[in-house]
């Protein structure tokens, strides 16, 4: 049932309004940060207020206006969008607190620009989540690309500018391909509205649809860091850590993965994809990415780069889950989209906290750091165990569904991929944890733990990763949202 409501639109607009206010109050840092926090709270409140309705099967829609002949600009909060929207807005609140602490701690320059772009990014991320058709999606997706650029080059060093250039080359090319795809789809169908189960079936000969699918995957695959389109992500790690945390573990890359899920479920539809036969190559590519990125991560000595490769690997879990094309695996994909966000943001927060205090970035020098920063490294241990797939942490739940879906589809090889990658995860995360707690520090770390603004977000996201793996009620809710969107796509009651 579709209900007209202004709330999805307001959720998008709230941080847009905040962006303006942030710019206007650039000379008064406390007021400026207050706008960020207020907007984050308002946005989260709006989205949470939609939750009961969406869980009972209602889809909320904000219809704005016609922007092209036959294509309207509109936002629609359906279960799939809600998962992404909830995660993004919840983590924005946490990251805002963390950002304020971090940016003030390192006395970063141009903080107004930083918070302005951050708010713009969040607006477009929620726009991506709630987009009701491909055009709205494209607009938000491109705004996200552009708004992230000043954040990537925030340090304004030669290295940062070079990284920004690489980021733009990849993402703008992806955006161009997406534009081509959307125009082609519009030419074929005359409509761009997302329909559960897809709307492309029978609109064109299979060969054209295969090319279109490949182009779509290339377009979204850039942000989803699907190999071989991933190279921008590790390079973009020169950005300040909160940017890496929110945008490169949650917003930007997840927008790409989310786009792939949308295109799977709401543009092509599972039955068309099965009959086109385009899925096996994609699944193989995703499996390859999972394993290869994990292996590369083993050899990274810079903590943030190791996390980046871990992200590349984990994102392909989500793509792989979608590519298995069974309801269970798709459910697992959607859940992993959320769960990976909780865990990965914790890890990035920890990396940032370590850097802030000690200016250490390479893993070699982190021996014994857990004795000085027990809370930070404790959270790090929890999140890394979660990513490995230890039971009672949220990573286990989604991986369980992914594995179950693979078995249902009869793809035992993919189960092996999951197991091997889990082992690899363990082997690149656990040495860090081990060294942090059990090795004598090579040099003395004089400073102790952080002030609350930096520590509280770390603890909060770590607790979230535990809660979504251990509290049946939360797991059930998350599963409900995911399975609701799956049943819409597969057309089951």
């Amino acid at each position: 049932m579709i209900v007209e409501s202004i709330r999805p639109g307001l959720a998008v607009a709230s941080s847009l309004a905040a962006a303006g206010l942030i710019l206007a109050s650039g000379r008064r840092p406390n007021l400026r940060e207050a706008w960020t926090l207020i907007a984050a709270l308002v946005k989260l409140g709006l989205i949470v207020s939609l939750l009961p309705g969406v869980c009972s099967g209602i889809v909320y829609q904000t219809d704005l206006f016609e922007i092209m002949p036959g294509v309207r600009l509109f936002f629609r909060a359906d279960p799939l969008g809600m998962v992404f929207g909830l995660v993004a807005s919840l983590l924005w609140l946490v990251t805002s607190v963390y950002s304020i602490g971090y940016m003030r701690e390192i006395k970063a320059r141009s903080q107004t620009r930083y918070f302005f772009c951050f708010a713009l990014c969040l607006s477009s991320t929620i726009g991506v989540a709630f987009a009701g058709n491909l055009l709205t999606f494209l607009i938000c997706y491109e705004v996200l690309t552009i708004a992230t650029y000043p954040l990537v080059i925030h340090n304004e060093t030669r290295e940062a500018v070079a990284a920004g250039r690489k980021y733009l080359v990849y993402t703008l090319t992806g955006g161009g391909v997406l534009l081509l795809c959307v125009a082609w789809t519009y030419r074929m169908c005359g409509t761009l509205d997302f329909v559960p189960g897809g709307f492309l079936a029978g609109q064109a000969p299979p060969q054209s649809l295969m090319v279109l699918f490949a182009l779509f995957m290339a377009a979204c695959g850039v942000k989803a860091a699907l190999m071989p389109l991933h190279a921008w992500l590790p390079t973009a790690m020169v950005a300040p850590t909160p940017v890496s945390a929110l945008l490169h573990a949650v917003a930007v890359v997840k927008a790409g993965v989310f786009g792939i899920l949308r295109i799977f479920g709401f543009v092509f539809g599972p039955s068309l994809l099965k009959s086109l036969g385009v899925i096996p190559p994609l699944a193989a590519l995703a499996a390859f990415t999972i394993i290869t990125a994990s292996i590369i991560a083993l050899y990274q000595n810079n903590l943030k780069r190791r996390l980046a490769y871990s992200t590349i690997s984990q994102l392909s879990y989500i793509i792989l889950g979608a590519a298995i094309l069974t309801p269970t695996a798709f459910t697992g994909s959607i859940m992993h989209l959320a769960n990976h966000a909780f865990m990965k943001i914790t890890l990035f927060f920890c990396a940032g906290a370590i850097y802030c205090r000690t200016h250490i970035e390479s893993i070699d020098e982190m021996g014994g750091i857990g004795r000085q920063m027990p809370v930070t490294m404790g959270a790090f241990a929890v999140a890394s165990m979660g990513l490995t797939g230890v039971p009672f942490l949220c990573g286990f739940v989604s991986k369980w569904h992914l594995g179950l879906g693979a078995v249902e589809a009869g793809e035992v090889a993919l189960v092996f991929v999951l197991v091997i990658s889990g082992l690899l995860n363990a082997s690149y995360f656990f040495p860090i944890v081990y060294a942090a707690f059990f090795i004598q520090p090579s040099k003395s770390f004089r400073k102790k733990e952080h002030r609350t603004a930096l520590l509280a977000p770390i603890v909060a996201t770590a607790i979230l990763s535990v809660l979504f793996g251990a509290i049946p009620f939360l797991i059930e809710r998350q599963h409900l949202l995911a399975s609701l969107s799956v049943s819409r796509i597969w057309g089951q009651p």
Partner: protein
Amino acid sequence: MSASRILIAIFLIPFLAAFLCPLAGLWRRRFVHPITVLGLSGSAVCAFCGLLKVVRTGPVHYTFGGWAPPLGIEWTLDGLSAGMAVLISSMALIVVAGSRVSARAEVGESVTAFYTSCLLLVSGLLGLVLSADLFNVFVFLEVASLSAYALVASGGRRARVASLRYLILGTMGATFYLLGVAYVYAATGTLNMADAAARLDPVMRTPTAVLGLTFIIVGLALKMGLFPLHGWLPDAYTHASDAASALMAPIMTKTAIYALVRILFWVFGTGTVTETFPVMNMLAWAGAIAVVAGSVMAFTQTDLKRMFAYSSIGQVGLIVLGIGLANKTAMAGAFLHVLNHALMKGCLFLIAASAGYAHGIRTLDDLSLLGKRMPWTMGAFWVAALSMIGVPPTCGFFSKWYILLGALRAGQPFFAFLIVASSLLTAAYFFRALEHTYRQRPERRNGGEGPVGLVAATTGLSLTIVSLGVLSLHVLRIIERAALPPGLQ
């Protein structure tokens, strides 16, 4: 005011102001600028009224001295010419009103001559779009061009060489055009557009008519700076004074494009140029080559205004490509891009004027000052650059979108691919400029934003760029209703 009086007032107000300017300048030089602004705003208001009237009730005709059309000279205001008139007079108004301070600093003593040339340029362009007579078009093309040569020369010593080059090539273009018109006259015995259209059909396959068509296309291609006939454009726009290049860049090339569309589709007829002779296909290819060439050349520039000039060459190519695709979607996209590109280029050249006035910024290397010292101008630069690249929701995205759709509709996926590729090339050179704004510079200099007028103009234009993007459907509806050539599929 009756419709035909509005039509004539659009042209007459700035034209009379052009004669008033020197007189006022002899007495008090400070009256010159207000008179110019008044003349242009009168013209802009009339043009808006005319557009509204035309969209509601259809084309308006005016015959000079009451002589009936084939004998007398006829002017016509239809959707397309009214739209162009609005664009020309309001862009000129914004530029002239905004750049008062920087123009005074640049042209100094010769401010009277400068504004008189501006008014003559604008009234020439307005006369061109209003006229429904082939020879009249030539006359006004020359009025506008001669004032443009003078305006370019106002930029100082190096500008004089650029102006001479512009004069030679521009005159060649005008000569080609006049030659073409002569052939058309020889074939049909008339200069009135509607009359010629009716008589051309039976004689279209004769060499005389074909030669006429060819010469007219070449002449106008020279005037619009279509690659490889763009030689005059970069130097002229770079070395002209900032206010002059901001005035010329958005509207001069567009008016030549207008003349081409008008003559190809209204005089020779849609059937002739799409079916009898494959002119449109050739134009599409020429446009496609110009898009790539212009963008690549823009990428190699180090001078800010020169980069903008080469970018204009690329964008003219995109518009010509859209026209050459010869279907309703692409044509509407091309018309939309004429409007959008005028807004963007006007904004960019005004930014260059502002940056040049406040900090002497001329090259990309200097741009770091723009980033550090001029927050408003910087914001406008971002918006205009994103629109040039075609990032939604700015207006540049939407015109590219319709040209792209038109390419797909015409069954030309290669052109579709090329349009996307040209966006990426545009991104390459604009982000190259934007990168410079983030570069660290140790030196500290004083000074902040540019003059208030320029800041207001650039900010206003950047807001228009975004809102015309979001509201582009309304502009498209007007174009589809009143401005598309008859008989187009």
